[in-house]
């Protein structure tokens, strides 16, 4: 699994979420809720999981799928940092 810096992970997660939501990265704020602020639906959520796996080179475990880990952009960043060993 490739090592990522904190800043790199933040940037890349924001970029992935921006693409998913069809917005510019500058429109994505870390405090934003995926469901309420960014209108991420269940299909997009699965797409997010798949993209994160592919991009960061880890496999999602069953126990990773906890609501608090995907509540906001910040929590997704935190989750990915945990998976990439940063």
């Amino acid at each position, binding site marked *: 699994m490739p090592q990522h810096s904190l800043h790199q992970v933040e940037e890349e997660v924001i970029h992935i979420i921006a693409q998913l939501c069809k917005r510019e990265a500058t429109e994505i704020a870390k405090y934003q809720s995926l*469901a309420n602020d960014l209108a991420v639906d269940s299909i997009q959520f699965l797409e997010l*999981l798949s993209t994160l796996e592919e991009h960061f080179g880890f496999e999602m475990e069953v126990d990773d799928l906890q609501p608090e880990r995907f509540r906001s952009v910040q929590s997704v960043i935190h989750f990915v940092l945990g998976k990439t060993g940063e």
Partner: protein
Amino acid sequence: MNNSYEVEQRLQRFVLDRLQEYPFYRPFGKVAHLHELPVVDKRMINEQREQFERPVTGKIYETFTSGTTGIPFRCIKTAEERLQLSMALYRQRKKWGLPANHQMLLLSNRSLTEGHHLGHYVSKLMKNRYHMIQGRASALLSLAQYISDQGVQVPDSLLFIQNWGEPVHAFQKKEIEQVFQVPFVDYYGLEELWAIAFSNRNGQLEVDEQSVYLEILEPGTFRAVQEGEYGEVVVTSFVMRSIPFIRYRTGDIGRIFRDPSGALLLELFPVRNEQIKLPNGQIPSSIFRYLDKFFYELAEHNRIRQFQVIQETYTDFRLLVVAEQLEEPLLHNKLEKFLSQSLSTEVRLTIERKDGILPSNNGKLQSFISLV
């Protein structure tokens, strides 16, 4: 989560601490235990809807259900709730190997007895590399039998077949697994709060304790039964907040017990899935789920509190309706047409307004009964 103490703690944190949000629960003040709260059901929530809803902002998803009790109910979910429920569902499916980037074939709620419907699904199966197929057990069986009869090659991308919305019989499961050569995964849930339990690798229904808290209560008294004893399944959702489902009656009978690993298992009491009888076979009454929205709209306009469809002969049906007023022609036309189309024969429908509909001998309110 298979630690009873952790579950109780979660119950305290997520349920009891937020009761003040709902007018219905405010009079109870600060309670210490769930069992101090009343058991509720669709009828109670319908009659006092404003007492159970908290103001929500943002997008709301609306669906309808009558379930097996024939009481029309409007379900709402916020975007956050829907996402959490979807995540819970995917978490269960992932245990069966489903990747995030997957393809699912979803079978229609309508009856699947006609060849051209089944042919359509087979055609889709051939063109796409589906990982799972989801449908009612009877629809899955029809598809399996069609595939077997036609000698169709099943795609090797399939990981499992998932039941939805109908009790499954052992012979159905066996035949479906034989044809598709993948596990048949059972699912138990409610439209109101989605997944309650999902098959584990031993073929048992395992309760999703991250999403729900289950109680088994003695019908009538609502006292808790001993672990392993049968009673009514009553559910509390950790996810739903737009409408709280706290000690919510499912109308189903079952029992729960922990296995040696600590997982909470659910066994539902075998219910005879009411079938619409035909001279040359039968159709599951769950096809009436297709009309869930129709019945809810009727409930809204006509204040229909409950309905029951009774099959009196192969082609004579009676609709019992508990309602304050009734648009009979609309209801008659829609339902008679639906039945005629579904059964591929002309039917006769009569409508009867009632003050109440009694439960069956098993104590359960049923939305469909066949006297044939």
